[in-house]
């Protein structure tokens, strides 16, 4: 029973709208990421769900119960919401050892000591910290503190778990492995998760659905695959993955590349006037013999599993990534030909 509903949620600070018209229905057991650049309103939304911020407008529901209703002026206190939360700073209490930290939510619920220790022990096993129960947080590494915070958030078996950029203070390798661990725990417990991050690969690998946010607005809600292959607008296309934008003009059912009036693409969105074509670097093929358009090889970067090319086409630099390409196959200054595949189109944004 952990469906989460946000209906027309707004948060304003004076004249500034931090979050505008946020709507989502999260299914039980779903893993949702809020993804966006810093200041996009993702953390504010999470804190409204937790109860640390009050929405200016809108209703938040867990299951059938309203936990926040701005119109009625009703805001359930955070401690009544039965939510687990992991903070970016971990917020592990430095004056309590690991067992006391993890057991605190149970202590508040007056769970008898025996049972409490049992459940804490189980949680510590889940996060691989069973050896560390007696330690103080200052004796733990960042990654271990992170696990303590996770165990504490899960110990009371909340139906909803909120994670606020939990991995951003960890080093790259640990971040990678924690990603899969959190995913595994979530699947294991069948818990609903809201995960805030600015790291797109985190969101892509872990989530059932991603909410892409920018400037306080929801730009798109969708599965990782849909968001990547079919972004709702230019902002989403730009924020998720790499992309080349090419100015274009839409006429009827075709979109014409500016400066290459002979080259056109289908216009499924029925755009008209100024438009933007977008193509991901891996969807461009490069050849010496011929293709849609001619360009000059500008730069090549050897990445290991692929080569990252910059090709000058008229006034544009087009980025092309080819898996398993031979670095020496092209020379700088050489004339090359490009073919575009999976071209996306958007209305021009200001």
């Amino acid at each position, binding site marked *: 029973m952990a469906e989460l509903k946000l209906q027309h949620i707004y948060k304003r600070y004076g004249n500034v709208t931090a979050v505008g018209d946020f709507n989502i229905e999260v299914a039980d057991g779903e893993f949702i990421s809020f993804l966006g650049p810093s200041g996009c309103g993702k*953390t504010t939304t999470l*804190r409204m769900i*937790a*109860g*640390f911020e009050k929405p200016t407008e809108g209703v938040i529901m867990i299951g059938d119960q309203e936990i926040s209703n701005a119109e009625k002026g009703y805001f359930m*206190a*955070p*401690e*009544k*919401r*039965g*939510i*687990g*939360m992991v*903070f*970016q*700073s*971990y*917020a*592990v*209490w*430095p*004056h309590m050892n690991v067992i006391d930290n993890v057991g*605190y*939510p149970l202590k*508040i*619920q007056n769970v008898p000591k025996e049972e409490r220790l049992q459940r804490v022990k189980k949680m510590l096993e889940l996060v691989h910290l069973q050896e560390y129960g007696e330690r103080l*947080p*200052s004796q733990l590494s*960042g990654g271990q*503190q992170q696990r303590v*915070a996770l165990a*504490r*958030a899960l110990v*009371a078996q909340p139906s909803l778990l*909120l994670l606020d*950029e939990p991995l951003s*203070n960890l080093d790259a390798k640990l971040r990678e492995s924690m990603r899969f661990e959190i995913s595994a725990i979530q699947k294991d417990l069948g818990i609903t998760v809201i995960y805030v991050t600015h790291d797109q690969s985190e969101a892509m690998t872990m989530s059932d659905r991603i909410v892409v946010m920018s400037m306080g607005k929801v730009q798109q809600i969708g599965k990782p695959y849909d968001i990547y292959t079919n972004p709702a607008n230019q902002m989403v296309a730009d924020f998720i993955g790499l992309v080349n934008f090419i100015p274009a003009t839409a006429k009827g059912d075709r979109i014409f590349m500016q400066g290459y009036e002979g080259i056109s693409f289908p216009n499924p969105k029925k755009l008209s006037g100024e438009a933007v074509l977008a193509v991901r670097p891996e969807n461009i093929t490069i050849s010496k013999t011929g293709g849609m358009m001619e360009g000059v090889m500008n730069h090549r970067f050897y990445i290991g599993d692929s080569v990252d090319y910059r090709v000058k086409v008229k006034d544009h630099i087009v980025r092309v990534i080819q898996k398993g390409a031979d670095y020496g196959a092209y020379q700088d200054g050489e004339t090359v030909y490009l073919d575009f595949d999976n071209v996306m189109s958007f209305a021009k944004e200001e």
Partner: protein
Amino acid sequence: MKKSLPRLDSKFIVIAISVLLLLYFIVFPLLVLIYDSLFINGTFDISNYKDVYGKKVNWKALTNTIQISLIVMVASVIVTFPLAWLVGRTDLPGKKTFRTILVASYMIPPYVGAIAWVQLLNPSVGYLNDFIKFVFGLQKAPFDIYTMGGLAWVLTLFYSPFAFITISRAMEKMDPTLEEAARISGSSPLKTLWDVTLPLMMPSIVAGGLLVFIAAASCFGIPAIVGMPGNIEVMTTRIVTFLYMGDDKGIRDATALAVSMMVVANGLLMFMSWMLSHKDYTTISGKSTRPNMVELGKWKWPAFGAVAVYAFIAVILPLTSIIVTSFLVSMSKGLALDNFGIDAWIPVVTSSQYMESVWRSIGYGIVAACIGTVLALFVAYLSVKTKVTGRSIPDLLVVLGGATPSIVIALALIVTFSGNYGLNLYSTMWILIVSYLVKYMTMSVRTIAASLSQVHISLEEAALSSGASWIRTCKDIIMPLVAPSIVAGWFLIFMPSFYELTMSNLLYGADTKSLGVLLYELQTYADTQNASVLSVIILLIVLVGNIILNKVTKGKVSI
């Protein structure tokens, strides 16, 4: 490598000179004092202590001091913790103004506060006593300031800002998500305060409390003005009484008392810094979340009322009393409209004797501040910016001086620099200035060191690699960045020096009577009005100093 060698040498010379100066003016006098208390004519003899503590009056002074300081410490913490929490962590209306008012008594000389409370609560003509008598139709004055309770009351009001500043700083530094984590774990706001906030604050609460204890125990001005008329003696007033006797025996007794005070005060401070460094409560703090203010709800206005009443009683009432008294035409006629005028001001501002003291004290303050700031800059630079062995020794010596009770410093300087050990500064302005430096340089060093440590080494290295010489780097990069803290450091020595009483009172000579001493004399000769006028002059200078300080440091540092 060739270039860096002579620089290391010059740094070493600077460190050597400052260590020698500090050793000579801080450590040596204290050692002489301890030696004098333990040796009579060169032989070890603890009869000084036996004599002193054999007398009932001295025991009484000791127990009074401990008793009063404990009361003041506990009361300060009890009052201060909720105030710091309300002002720092809730949506209390007008909290910025309250913060300013609550730390204001920190910059008022304690003896001015004592004079104000004598005016308000003396049993015969206290304004507040009269007012309460009038309102409730009482025959007798309800309060008598000249009691243990009165002394504890004034000390609490004037030293609780030490606790307030310490505790509210720690509260601001605490990661608010630690409290949010408790809330989301199911804990109510009050339970969170108890389970998380209070334990995390405990080291600073203890530290703040100890600071108050030491300050209250070392204070001379307030017990002298409030306690003495009621025959309540504390350690500091006993020491001064012994010294006033003027003979060798008096000095020896004073020495024994002073050494016991020094041991207690420095011991407590050492314990405090050990405790603060021992408990490692630092955690990784995340991005700066908007500090989550506790909403007081229906308690908002009752809390506002309580804080307002406290602020009024602690700060506004005594200040008003001083100002009003200075503008009364005649003390005996009381508060009436036709009794207001500048009559009391004219004799003060036209008296060459009074004005000389005012200018003299400003002068001494300026000299002390200039010398002190230069020394503080060396000491701070050495301890923060260099890797020389022993770089933090000067810093430690300065802290030792600041931690020693004023009265002990004064006594140590008397026994050391009266010519018995070469240098004779007795009755000169230099003995006063040395005493101010010993006592007040520590704040200045702290401020400048904090600012210097903010200038990351890479900023200097960037200038050096851009081709600037080391001197040029100092001029173009370091100085502009730390200039505000140098100005702040200057004022932090100037202000307490110019209104200093405790040490000046023991060290002044015929031609070096300072403002604090003059004011104390006027008050003890029961010339309250002139004392009030001089108090208002002091307050004005302090106010101007603070405004300048605030402007220069953009509100980061104030007394």
